[in-house]
Structures are given as C-alpha cells and as structure tokens.
C-alpha cells in the first residue's frame, strides 16, 4: 500500500511586514516559514494507516511543490516517519495559483499511483481550500473534502470517513480506494519527531525534480492557472476598531467599563 501526502511549507507574515516596492508581493525578509498546520494532521493520518496495516512494503511518500525553503517541511515529515520525499520546483512556478500547483502535483502523484492521497483541507497562507479536490479532478480520483474521521480498511481498500459540515454536523460516508481525502485539523494528535529522528531524516531519500522530469511543459502549467494576481494590498481601512491604548491596567479598566455599559443597556 502506498499513501502520498502533499504538504506545503507556508509563510506567515511577521508583525511589521513590508510589501515589495512594486506591490507584487511581500518582502521575503518578513516571512516566517513553517509546515502547514493541516498537513501535520494528514501526515499523522498516513503514518497511522501505514502502522496499522498488515505486512511490509507499505510506503508514505511526501511531496511538495516549492523552492528550497520547502525542504525543511519535507525533512520534518521524514523525521516523523515518512519513507521518502519529493520536491518539485521550477522558477516558472513562482506565484503559481491553486490550479497550476494541482496540475504539477497531478503529474507527480500519477507516477506514484498510490492507494490514498491525503491532502490538508487548506493552507494557512493561501487559504484556497481547493488544491486537493482540484488534484482529484485532474486525476479523476474519487474524493471527499474536510475529513475529520478516517477508518481505512486495507483489505477491502475502502475508507469510511466523517465529513465535517457547517455547525458541527457530520456526514459518514464510504469511498473506495484509490481516493483522495482532504484532512481536517483535530482528526488525530500529530506526533513530534525525536531529536534522533530529525538527524536521521537527512539520510532518507529526498528527490528534487523540475517540470521536465515530470514530463510537464512550462506552458501547460501556465495555462492551467485559474487566475492572475494583479495586486497585493493591505485591506481597505474599514470603520475599524476603536483602539484602547495605555497600560494593561488602563485597557482592563476600559474593558470593564464597556462591558458594564453594554450589559446594562
């Protein structure tokens, strides 16, 4: 059995970030990188399925579309127990949108022909919430989005999953592998890697490929893109909050006042 886990190294803005002069993006000096929170849960789900499966030869493969910055995320997955990693990058992928990334992932996943593909529900920086299901679309795989419970029966190659709906309603459904699921936070307790495992992760296979290695043309990926970003801007200042300034004591005093006024009115 093979499980492919697409993961993303996400960027968070630090508190005093600045935009590039041409407005095309954020000055990279102000970005902090980390493995996407959702992907720690999909990774854990994959490891648990592998550990519960009978026999050997089961494999968890992590894959990312990203520049060198993304390697750290792959290493953390290898340290937790992924068997091997694949990083795909090409300068033309800078700023690639959700459909372009899904197209590239599709080429990589197709070569692996896994039983399961486990994505995260969303990435915390782009928040498309769409890469997984787009990937399933390209590969014509059955898919379920926003999975918060997963029971994989390897013998039957069937997954019974809980799909989380609005308001905490859950739909239980069954899907046959090969299938793609997008995994929601809280489905499990992601493990931490030991220091030793972190050191050993560097010994595990990590393959770097470009588009040509996957048989993809730059043009085809560019055409797959669903949108083009024309500007990145701070949000329009709305009415905005009235800021409570001063010492913590002053802030607390104002909060008490506001609450008393609102609750008595």
């Amino acid at each position, binding site marked *: 059995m093979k499980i492919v886990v697409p993961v993303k190294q996400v960027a968070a803005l630090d508190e005093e970030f600045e935009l590039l002069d041409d407005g095309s993006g954020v000055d990279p000096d102000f970005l902090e990188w980390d493995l996407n929170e959702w992907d720690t849960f999909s990774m854990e789900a994959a490891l648990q399925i592998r550990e519960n499966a009978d026999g050997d030869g089961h494999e968890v493969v992590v894959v990312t579309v990203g520049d060198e910055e993304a390697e750290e995320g792959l290493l953390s997955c290898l340290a937790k127990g992924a068997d091997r990693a694949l990083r795909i990058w090409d300068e033309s992928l800078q700023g690639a949108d959700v459909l372009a990334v899904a197209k590239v992932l599709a080429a990589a996943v197709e070569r692996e022909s896994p039983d399961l593909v486990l994505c995260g529900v969303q990435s915390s920086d782009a928040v498309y919430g*769409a890469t997984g299901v787009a990937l399933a679309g390209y590969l014509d795989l059955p898919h379920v989005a926003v999975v918060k419970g997963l029971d994989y029966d390897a013998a039957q190659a069937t997954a019974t999953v809980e799909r989380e709906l609005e308001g905490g309603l859950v739909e239980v459904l069954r899907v046959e592998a090969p299938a793609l699921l997008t995994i929601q936070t809280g489905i499990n*307790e992601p493990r931490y890697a030991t220091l030793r495992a972190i050191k050993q992760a560097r010994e595990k296979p990590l393959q770097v490929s470009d588009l040509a290695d996957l048989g993809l043309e730059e043009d085809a990926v560019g055409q797959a893109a*669903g949108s083009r970003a024309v500007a990145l801007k701070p949000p329009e200042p709305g009415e*905005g909050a*009235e800021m409570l300034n001063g010492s913590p004591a002053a802030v607390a005093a104002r909060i008490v006042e506001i609450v008393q006024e609102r609750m008595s009115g």
Partner: protein
Amino acid sequence: MSGVLVIAESRRGELREVSLELVTAAREVAEAAGGQLKVAIIGADAEQVGPQLGAEGVDEVLTVTAPQQHFEAHVWQKALEALIDSEQPSLILAGHTIDSLGFAPATAARRALGFATDVTAISWADGPRAVRGAYGDKLHSELEFPGKECTLLTVRPGLFSPATPGEGSVPVRAVEANLENVARTEHIEFVEATAGDVDITKAEFLLSIGRGVEDKDNIPRFEQLAERFGATLSVSRPLVDAGWMPSARQVGQSGKTVKPRVYLAFGISGAVQHLAGMRNADTIIAVNTDPEAPIFSVAHYGAVADLFEVADELEQALG
C-alpha cells in the same frame, strides 16, 4: 459565453442562506457580464426548493434533479459540468462552503476554468475581477482571469446581504444531466453535533479564548475570570482540536454561531471560519498582541496587548 450562473445550495431539503447572498453578488455584475442571471439548484429536492430562488433580478431558475437524496460530490461535479455545457455562462458563483469545496475545484480543473475561492468582492472590467484574502486575510489580492471564457468563483458567505426569496413568478426550467452511476461515495448517515453542558448561543456575554492562551493549564484561569466577570467561556477551534475544551464551546463555521451583546476575544486571530460564527455580535472587543490580526477588522474595540497582562489587571479590577 455570457451571463452569470449562481449555484445555489440546499441541505436536507432546506435552502441554505448563502444561495440568496450569491444572488445579491451576481446582480451587481450581471449586467456588465452581458447576459442573463440564472440560478441553478442541484439535488433530489431541486424542484421543491427552486421557486424560492426566483428573487428579484433573476431571469430564470434551473433545476438539476439528482438521483441521490443528499449531496454527493461527484454527482454535483457532473451536474455543474452539464450546466456549463447547456448554459455557457461567463461567470459562475458558488458559495465558499463545505459542499462546494467538495466539487467545484474538480470542475474548475477538468474544464480549465478561471477559478478563485473564498472571494470577498467581485467586479467586472472586460471580464470578471475578484478580490480574495492573502496570508490569512492580512492582505488582499486582486485577481483577473485572462484568457478564460468561463470563470468559477466561490464567494465567502456572510458578506452580501441575502436577496428576498422569490414567490414563484420567475420561470423554472429543468436541465437534463445524465447522473446515473456517477456517484463514487456512499452516504451512510448524518451525525448531529453533540450538545454540551452549556449553550453558548444563549449567552449574552462571551469571554472567548484562542490559541494565544498557549497551554491547557491556563484554561482554569480563564474559566474563573469568566465566572467573576459574569461571562460564559467560549473558544476558537484549536482548543477543541487539542482536546482542551468540548466542541460545544467552539465558536465558528464548524462550531456555533453566536450573537451575544458582548464578545470579548483573547488571543484569537480572526480566521474567516471563526468570524463566521461571531461577526454579528453587538459589541466585539479583541485583545491580541498582533496589530495586524484580522479580528481587529470586525472588532468595535481593540487592544494590542498581552492577554495575560490584561487578564491580571481584570482579575484585580473585578476583585
């Protein structure tokens, strides 16, 4: 290709409110899109729900009857493709909802559509334009869709005011789609959210804590603070995911929608799914160390401060 097609949504026989919000959003660009405004509903209940969708400004309601009683992603995906073929819209609007995210991206990929999710504003200039958040809503990204004849946008719920439901005067047409043997998942059951010890939707004053509280051991302190303050304690999702608090206390899209008189948020960033559950509170007060936290965009009062220091002082002040 021309005109705007709205994909409405129902669940267990009921129209979901986002459907009528999409009608409002579509009305703003339908004329510029040079064609009709049509609203489609897919499902076993399409014909019952359909007439309500004939709101002002809607030219036609389309129904696609699905063989499944409940939403099934692959059936909906196929139905959307059939609608694209028969109606040839230049813009399609769906909700940025759990159901849509289960099928819309697959259609966008397969049909090479222009595509963006969680869109917060739409306009038209030689084609659709959209705005969506970036870096967790700290920035806005403006998008265009060059070279695309048809663009599919999923629109954030709760931003457009819902259109008044129609009374059945708008024509309804059934669109044929071959949906037999298309499903690839099997529905087993729905499980309702479990009820908790308190109903946070009834509370007038919520003290709500988020990941900023850092540790499980800090929670009793905020339970006590809430009690002294006369507030009910609620939380953001990470505290439920970590098993620190029961899900009945969770505010947001996958938790409860609350509308208290006062919502006091400590260490909550204001992710879209959290805001979905509390943005309509009468008074929102947010305490966060990050001046750029999106929660400040919906708060009435904000303090850029350390929540523990403010909590210390509140404890003092409340005695």
